[in-house]
């Protein structure tokens, strides 16, 4: 951040009165003076900060972050609704309890992942949907971990 107060007569230090080319000094000073804004300087000048960027906040790693769209109601209990925008980070480890994008039989599904002694389970957040226990022979993989969902009200 640039800390700058327009009240200081900073320009004149660029060339001094003892400068061999005094004419240049006066001319330059006149030019610089013209650039100094009139009126009171803003008291907030010293406090200007970068505006909040959702992009930076929601996207940890640009290389590994993708967006997906939700279709269905099975994740309502965790606040994920039909039509929501999912922020998916492929770099995050798929630990037990996190919401993941899983590939089951060639299709994307969003569910909560649980590591149990009997193997991996995909759990919905809706009373009508039963747990899905992953069988060893099943075509299954974790595509990425859902880090955020964006819901429009």
């Amino acid at each position, binding site marked *: 951040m640039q800390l700058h107060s327009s009240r200081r007569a900073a320009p004149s230090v660029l060339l001094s009165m003892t400068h061999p080319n005094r004419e240049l000094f006066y001319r330059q000073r006149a030019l610089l003076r013209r650039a100094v804004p009139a009126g009171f300087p803003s008291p907030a000048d010293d406090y200007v900060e970068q505006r909040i960027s959702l992009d930076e906040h929601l996207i940890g*790693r*640009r*290389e*590994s972050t*993708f*967006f*997906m*769209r*939700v*279709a*269905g*109601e*099975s*994740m309502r209990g965790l606040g*994920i609704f*039909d039509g929501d*925008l*999912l922020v998916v980070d*492929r*770099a995050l480890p798929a630990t037990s309890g996190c919401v993941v*994008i899983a*590939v089951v039989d*060639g*299709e*994307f*599904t*969003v*569910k909560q992942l649980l590591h149990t002694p009997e193997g991996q389970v995909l759990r*919905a957040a809706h009373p009508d949907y039963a747990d899905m226990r992953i069988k060893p022979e099943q075509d299954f*993989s974790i*595509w990425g971990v859902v880090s955020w969902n964006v819901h429009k009200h």
Partner: protein
Amino acid sequence: MKRAIALVDCNNFYVSCERLFRPDLEGKPVVILSNNDGCVVSRSQEVRDLGIMMAAPWFKLKDLAKKHGIIALSSNYALYADLSNRVMRLLAQYAPNQEIYSIDECFLDMTGMTELTRHGQQMRHTVRQYVGIPVCVGIASTKTLAKLANHVAKKQPHFNGVCNFNDLPVDELNTLLEKIEVGEVWGVGRRTTLRLQQMGITTVLNLKNSPASRIRAEFGVVLARTLSELGGTVCLELDELSSPRQQIICSRSFGASVVQLSELEQAVIAYTTRAAEKLRQSHSLATCVQVSIRTSPHQARQYQPDMNIPLAEPTDDTRVLCHAALSGLRQIYRSGYTYQKAGVTLSGIIAASDRPRTLFDDVAAPSAALMATIDGINRRMGSGTIRLLGEGIKKNWAMKRGNRSPRYTTELTELAVAKA
């Protein structure tokens, strides 16, 4: 110090991009077709195993495709470009110098680093996990050898995707090079291969062991340089900073054949607009516009003219460039031919900051503001939102991309869907 140069190459890049968002295509034979769905530009391993070659015309493959259930997709360059950028940015973190050689491969200078094979495995693993694209890594003391090391890493599964020539004893390396055909060497084209074969040089090892004087006398300095690189002497350095573009080309085949000047004009305006956008993206100005049109090579009556139109002063203004391109087109157009392709090339490119100052600079300022505004709107609202009306509204000539997948990473309306 012995140099260590890595070549990282994505496996079946376009197919891998499609499979990332279509996991159901895993394990199935998939081809990606070129613009206008003309010929094969990327093949999955399953398709390679069927013996289908690169650049094979699709219409000749339709029976075979039906028999084996080959899935053909139109190319989706928006998707490929985005995934390529992600891969390249990740790889750049692994070495001080990177040369992006093409959309799916880059060189990394890893000289002075230790445990290169382990590093290579880590690169593979990270790119696979973060972006979902499988890559292979070849490491050697020169770029030419690194290309071959990559070839070995791809073809021989026991290397597990990373082959480091620098780690191999000379006799083992030579055994590998003996098994690779000379045509696989970087920069050795089909005609050179034939001539080499006639001289009895059929393998990479044969070429490596050929006397340099003979190769230089028969083939010239370029192949002599390749020969030194095969011997481990660096002749080709990494080209880190991509030099400013010498020219910008936008040239495409039409979706349907075109006879009338008015339709050619629309296409030329559209292509010039696209080229001008690229020109402004690279903060450059053009001093010359070339326009070319051509008839189908399958036709009896051929006509393939082109014309250069020098500009009064360097510019990046779409309107000025279009005006020049159209004046050229009108001079070379002849009625009675069926045209298949048009192209626009901007050349004599200089950096916008090097523009010679003229008396009329004030006149140029509003043009820059207008172009910046148009580019801004098209970036935000989708390309082509604002365009010259001359491009036409109903574009009969536009490219056919019948089976293009959604632009999963660049269009909010085309995201992949996760079932809940």
